[in-house]
């Protein structure tokens, strides 16, 4: 299982089935976010990602990035890398 699973509206596996499968493999680590999108029904996403970036920011960003390869029938696995740059001035 990757960080994110995008479930197409006409995919053979739906979000509820994905949740049951994932819960069996890694319980309580994923959330299902249902989305209003012409091709994607829901996004199954690792909880720790949503702790860093709220769903309302993360999901539109994700859909924008994967939109060229989306289809209604597809279930797309995606890996997300979040890089945090910290810059701090210190007094010497």
């Amino acid at each position, binding site marked *: 299982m990757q960080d994110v699973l995008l479930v197409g509206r*006409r*995919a*053979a596996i*739906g*979000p*509820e*089935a994905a949740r*049951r499968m994932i819960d069996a493999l890694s319980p309580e680590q994923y959330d299902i976010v249902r989305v209003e999108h012409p091709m994607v*029904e829901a996004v199954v996403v690792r909880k720790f990602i949503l702790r860093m970036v709220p769903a309302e920011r993360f999901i539109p960003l994700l859909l924008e990035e994967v939109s060229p390869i989306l289809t209604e029938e597809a279930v797309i696995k995606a890996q997300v890398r979040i890089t945090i740059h910290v810059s701090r001035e210190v007094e010497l």
Partner: protein
Amino acid sequence: MRVRDIMTTEVVTVEPGVSVRRAAAIMEEGGFGCLPVVENGRLLGVVTSRDVRTAHFNRLVADAMTRQTVVVGPDAFLWEAGELLVRHGIERLLVVQDGRLLGLVTKARLWQYLAQYRDPLTGLYRGEILKEKAMALLKSGAEIAVLFLDIDNFGRINKKYGHVIGDAVLQKMAVAMRQLLDEDQDLLGRYGGDEFAVVTRRRLSEARTLATLLCEGTSLVDWPHGISVSVSIGVAGGRRVSPRALEDVAAVVSELFNLASLASTRAKRARKGVMVVEHCELVTG
């Protein structure tokens, strides 16, 4: 009569974890247009024939079902259930209480019972449903007034011209009254014999004006055989400012109908046309 009195409790359901293929097979086998999706007695949604046509057959029912379902409570009146069916253009209603599926009522079964609520001669509501609608209005916090209308000397019309003409007068009276009422705030019913009743959301002064209008308007109708037809109307209610106590609505409605009926008798005796119950201090509320 309430929904629980006519609902069927033997409902074929599916669990959310079965496949769409399985749900489709159950629907085809039983000739069902839809199946309630139930888990541990709780209703989660409905899988319709459209859902099984459009979803992949390997999907779980939970991933194909329609989540927003139109449901009705077991204590709803039949006409309330009927209005829901018409408003949503559906064939069956699930009966649900506290999220649990209790039963199902179909359009055909509901219509069969609702037909008994209509007076076959005039097509108007019978007194029973008029009272139920009055109760629902009171429960919603609205104040109501009741107009009780009695055709003067109707027995004489029947005796002189025969019952066929008497029936024609009743039908014409129903049509004439309908034309004088405002559907948005007045409900008309045939209470029995030559008695009609109007439940209105108008305040007392407006209800009195309406009663006068009905008296005058119905006297101008071109009645069969040139018969002179007049009516006596009693008016009660329509003066409350605050909502009534909800547990008393049935008693309040009965009392209002009774007071208006007595007032119409007084109006007839006094040949006054309209009589308003001036002091209607109800025991309840």
